[in-house]
């Protein structure tokens, strides 16, 4: 057995002003070259454990620690993040918040310059890590001109440039579109296999990385609830923590199939081996634009041949024709930079189109990507009033400072602030599920359905295909500022490559979600 790279024995930690500990008697051992996924709902202690492994806890954040946590024999209680940085690379959730310098080359060089490496050694290491991560063409770019995916790769390069033995990542794909998120996970797998870098990644959407992982550690209330290979984790989740089960594991569980698959490939093999091919109709290719019957009620929101052409750049939106009817629930999808956010901001009136016109039947509510931007008061009650707090499920936090609320709570409060009492003809939400766990997504889907039920057209820009399939009755796919697909979730998400649910990939598009897929599989089993 090799010496463990990191090990914890009854390690507990409580933040300075918290009533309850964030980590409780954690026991674990991480081997060199392992790939570990940290699973758990929001507030379960994933981020705190990562911060403890790199020494930020307790040295930077402060608090009360007990027990033992060592990285390469160095106790995190005695050695700070600067000393542990020789062994650990860290990538946080929001790439924008961890980039320090203005130029990509300078940013990647910084950890080596801190260590006083010679310019030649720095130049060589930067060149090599850039080539390894495919960011060599970005080296002379400015960091504020990079997309989220590019910035996250640069952050990864800066974390890896000194060849750490342990790479810690805190939901690194939560801000990325499915394409960039998948690319990042494949990159991590390659690093792990080719360089032997031990990877610990905290992730809500575990289905992204289970195929690459050797092991999953699930945390509940700061304690280790499950520690084992991915398949054992999925079996445990199916029985004890449904919120952590992947869509395919739920599909198998609901169908009575064993063992749960860790990847789409395993699921397909298992279904093929059992001669189970869901017999649903294959999805039709989505239409480019929906035809509407003449007459009928006026649209809640309509964009007619809308263009946005920048003065010194390309057109962001190109001839968008989009009509949202009252009560419609629309998922707006597309990769980063496709024009989703711009379209929503234009629909609200924050941006004027350079051509075309926008018709609004009434007020339009818009929740922008960063919910914290809406929260300007000292108390939650002052933000949304008693009624708003009730609708947000936050009546018990009325006196709390909005900045002290969790991410999910802040999102719900910001939504009520944006709705401001209701009466809107259209409600637009921009990426509301970023960094959200499944219970919170389910609650948001229920709120969206309630808003649509009250007569508002609801459009949600999202990268989360499972969430889109859960709430939407229509999916619009944008590409390069144009509508490239517009149809039912089955049509658009059933046969997609990246824009497709995990269940759809395993069932050849016969079903999008675990529940309906299980119904088809059970029918197959009976037959």
């Amino acid at each position, binding site marked *: 057995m090799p010496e463990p790279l990191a090990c914890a024995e009854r390690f507990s930690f409580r933040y300075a002003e918290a009533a309850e500990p964030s980590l409780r008697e954690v026991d674990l051992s991480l081997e060199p070259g392992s790939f570990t996924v940290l699973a758990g709902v929001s507030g379960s202690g994933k981020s705190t454990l990562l911060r403890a492994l790199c020494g930020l806890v307790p040295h*930077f954040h402060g608090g009360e620690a007990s027990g033992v946590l060592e990285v390469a024999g160095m106790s995190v209680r005695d050695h700070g993040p600067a000393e542990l940085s020789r062994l650990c690379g860290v990538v946080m959730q929001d790439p924008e*918040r961890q980039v320090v310098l203005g130029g990509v080359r300078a940013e990647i060089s910084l950890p080596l*310059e*801190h260590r006083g490496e010679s310019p030649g050694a720095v130049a060589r290491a930067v060149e090599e890590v850039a080539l390894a991560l495919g960011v060599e063409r970005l080296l002379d770019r*400015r960091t504020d001109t990079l997309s989220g995916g590019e910035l996250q790769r640069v952050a990864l390069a800066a974390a890896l440039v000194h060849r750490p033995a342990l790479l810690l990542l805190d939901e690194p794909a939560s801000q990325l579109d499915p394409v960039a998120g998948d690319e990042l996970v494949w990159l991590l797998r390659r690093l792990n296999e080719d360089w032997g870098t031990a990877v610990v990644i905290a992730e809500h959407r575990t289905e992204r990385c289970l195929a690459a992982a050797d092991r999953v550690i699930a945390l509940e209330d700061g304690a280790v609830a499950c520690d084992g290979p991915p398949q054992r984790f999925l079996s445990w989740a199916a029985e004890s923590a449904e919120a952590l089960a992947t869509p395919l594991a739920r599909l198998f569980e609901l169908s009575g199939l064993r063992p749960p698959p860790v990847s789409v490939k395993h699921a397909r093999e298992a279904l093929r081996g059992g001669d189970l091919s869901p017999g649903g109709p294959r999805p039709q290719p989505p239409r480019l634009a929906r035809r509407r019957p003449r007459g009928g009620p006026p649209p809640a929101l309509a964009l007619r041949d809308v263009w946005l052409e920048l003065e010194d750049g390309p057109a962001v939106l190109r001839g968008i024709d989009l009509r949202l009817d009252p009560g419609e629930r629309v998922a707006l999808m597309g990769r980063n930079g496709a024009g989703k956010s711009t379209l929503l901001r234009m629909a*609200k009136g*924050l941006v004027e189109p350079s051509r075309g016109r926008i018709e609004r039947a009434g007020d339009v509510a818009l929740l*922008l990507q960063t919910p914290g931007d*809406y929260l300007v008061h000292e108390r939650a009650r002052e933000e949304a009033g008693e009624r708003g707090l009730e609708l947000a499920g936050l009546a018990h936090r009325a006196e709390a400072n909005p900045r002290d609320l969790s991410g999910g709570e802040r999102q719900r409060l910001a939504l009520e602030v944006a709705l401001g009492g209701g009466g809107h003809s259209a409600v637009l939400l921009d990426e509301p599920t970023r960094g959200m766990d499944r219970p919170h997504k389910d609650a948001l889907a229920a709120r969206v359905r309630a808003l649509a039920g009250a007569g508002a057209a609801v459009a949600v820009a999202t990268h989360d295909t499972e969430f889109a399939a859960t709430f939407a009755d229509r999916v619009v796919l944008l590409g390069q500022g144009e509508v490239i697909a517009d149809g039912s979730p089955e049509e658009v998400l059933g046969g997609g490559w990246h824009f497709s649910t995990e269940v759809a990939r395993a069932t050849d598009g016969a079903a999008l979600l675990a529940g309906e897929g299980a119904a088809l599989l059970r029918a197959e089993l009976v037959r």
Partner: protein
Amino acid sequence: MRVIPVYRPRPSALHAARAGAAAGLCAALALAGALFEHPLITAAVIVAAYAAGAAAQVGREMSRVALLALPLAALVAVINPLVYSEGETLLVRGGEFLGRRWDVTLEAVAAGGLAGLRVAAVVMALGLLSAAVDPDALLRLFRRVSYRSALSAALAVRLVPVLARDAGRMGEAARCRAEAPERLLVARAALSGALDRAVDVAAALEVRGYATATPPPRARRLWSRHDLAVGAAALAVAAGAIAARAVGVGSVEAYPTLELALGPAELLLACGLVVAATAPLAGRSARLGVARA
């Protein structure tokens, strides 16, 4: 529209030159602008900075800097005659207020205009620095002297536009509320957000070994032709301006009557500044790349 330009790499001799040389040229122009009140010379500095920017492919950015410089210059020009009432040529006879007379003289108006032009010249030179000199490379120069101060400055340079973007986003969010909150509340929330962001960046620095950082060893880099040409231009501009000032070229007396020296020396200095500042950036020698085989 961004009034203060942000550095972007461009294929120009000024961008290709090492940060020390390029910053030296901009600093020399700023020095020349600050040393002289003579309108011909300060105008020459403005022209030199703009022309150097245009040659370095940041002409659009320099136009925006000019939009910033103009109101600043106008402000100085307006305030000066209100503050100073020296001069023999009375234009407006003001009354008594706050225990003094508020007369406006032709000389004070002219002196205000000259001071405004001087401010504009310095702003244009600093605008060129902001648009054409890589701040990371520039700050790296200072890291050997004071590592942490240089890094703090680098952070500030990076965070200013980020925080401006945050504030813009919060302004948009305020417009999305049913009732727009008071500006003071939004400003306070923006400040809290800035502090949160600063904490995140501090954490990112910690995990990259900031606490045990040592000054980087001296980097030896050969001087390219662009380094040499731009460095020589910086020396020429600075030396020319200092020497001319020392021998009294471009003297201006605003009070009691306006007296401007305007002879061949002033003309020569003005032309010399423009030519020296733009020569390394124009012509065949300023082209980048290698000759065709």
